[in-house]
């Protein structure tokens, strides 16, 4: 039993004439990052809004927010992706649905992947934001009111700045999750990093080299994000405020 290692394979020309195999992986990385970053914008915007609304005194808004979070948390990511990709165009008005189906290849799977990851992660961000705000002492909000701030002002100047500092570490891991989860988009034909490694394996049979390269790239991304976020945490740290470690959470 012998496996033929061939690390030169990354410099071999790829069959589609776009250059060498290494370039395949790099372009895959590009799609992974593009998908993850765009989805992260959606996730952060929606998640921060919904998470904040869930801590307001408005009962029905809180209920709606809870329903939103439960909906996106209790359906597997892959199933949600299929809903965005296969099901949504059929349920929309015909003109819009047809336009979605007729998009040119990379975009036809890119946009559903971005929306899916964005909404999926937004529910998780919303949960973190809510937990962050509720972890603050109640006196903080009351002090804001006592100073004559309105509710939105209290959130803007008192609660949110503290809450976001507390939840920076869990938000970092959510950001890592969105990068990792973007690999699921290979099922709808997005050629991101994992898909590239997989097709490289199919063309060259050098399965372990291809997967090792992809794994190393993912580890590198993780290291960069972790170190980058550590610097951000240091910069925004308010002297005297504890940086909470947070309770252990289940998740990916």
């Amino acid at each position, binding site marked *: 039993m012998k496996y033929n290692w061939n690390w030169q394979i990354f410099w071999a020309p790829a069959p589609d004439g776009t250059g060498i195999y290494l370039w395949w992986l790099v372009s895959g990385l590009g799609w992974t990052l593009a998908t993850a970053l765009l989805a992260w914008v959606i996730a952060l915007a929606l998640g921060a809004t919904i998470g904040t609304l869930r801590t307001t005194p408005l009962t029905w808004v809180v209920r709606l927010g809870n329903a939103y979070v439960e909906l996106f948390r209790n359906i*597997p990511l892959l199933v949600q992706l*299929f809903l965005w990709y296969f*099901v949504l165009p059929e349920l929309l008005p015909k003109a819009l649905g047809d336009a979605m189906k007729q998009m040119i290849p990379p975009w036809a799977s890119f946009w559903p992947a971005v929306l899916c990851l964005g909404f999926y992660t937004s529910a998780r961000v919303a949960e973190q934001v809510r937990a962050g705000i509720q972890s603050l002492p109640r006196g903080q909000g009351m002090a804001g009111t006592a100073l004559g701030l309105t509710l939105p002002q209290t959130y803007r100047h008192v609660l949110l700045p503290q809450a976001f500092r507390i939840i920076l570490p869990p938000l970092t891991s959510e950001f890592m999750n969105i990068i*990792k989860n973007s690999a699921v988009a290979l099922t709808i034909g997005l050629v991101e990093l994992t898909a590239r490694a997989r097709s490289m394996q199919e063309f060259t049979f050098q399965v372990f080299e291809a997967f090792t390269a992809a*794994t190393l790239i993912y580890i590198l991304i993780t290291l960069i994000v972790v170190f980058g976020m550590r610097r951000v945490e240091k910069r925004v740290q308010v002297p005297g405020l504890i940086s909470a470690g947070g309770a252990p959470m289940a998740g990916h």
Partner: protein
Amino acid sequence: MFAGFDFDVIERSLPFLFKEGMTFTLTLTAMAMTGGIVFGTLLAMMRLSSYRFLNVPAATYVNLMRSVPLVLVIFWFYFLVPWIGGWLIGAKEPIRVGAFWSSVITFTMFEAAYYAEIMRAGIQSVPRGQAWAGYALGLNYWQTMGYVVLPQAFRNMLPVLLTQTIILFQDTSLVYVLGITDFLGAAARIAQRDGRLVEMYLFVAVVYFIISFTLSWLVKRLQLRIAIVS
């Protein structure tokens, strides 16, 4: 909107979906949970050990698994397990491993890294004095862990362990990338055969939602019941 719906296709495929698909999903979940918690606890104990040759490999393994997408891990194990198996039994060729065992091994090894982090927090949540008391009574390391520390760690972490299992249950749908007939795979087959993507995928989403939502509600109730009021 629902006028062109064919609900009949769901009814016709129910036996296939649940007998083949859901059985696979639940079996895989149960086996990966058991294996994952056992391995995860061992990894956590290694990580908390003061011996470098134990804690460094455990930390490396956990961090490696946690920085790689599950889809890539599934592919890794799918190709790696036959080689490791062949090497273990000294065969000339990589052995054939069925899709089922390949996914059981994958999910056990992958989730072990996540369970390990939970168990590590659980073990650390037990006051130091508990372990010292164990040693003072003359128990050795394994007895102290088995009778004193781990039972308390499990109790403290039970809700988080169960929540992780619900995530595992949802994650098993990713075996779709290997073309396995799990619950989603079964539905995808019917959907493509009959051209009924909308009905089948919506049904799958509803079923997953009901199961996961009910389980998380039960976990929440459990959490309230076993919470130690201080």
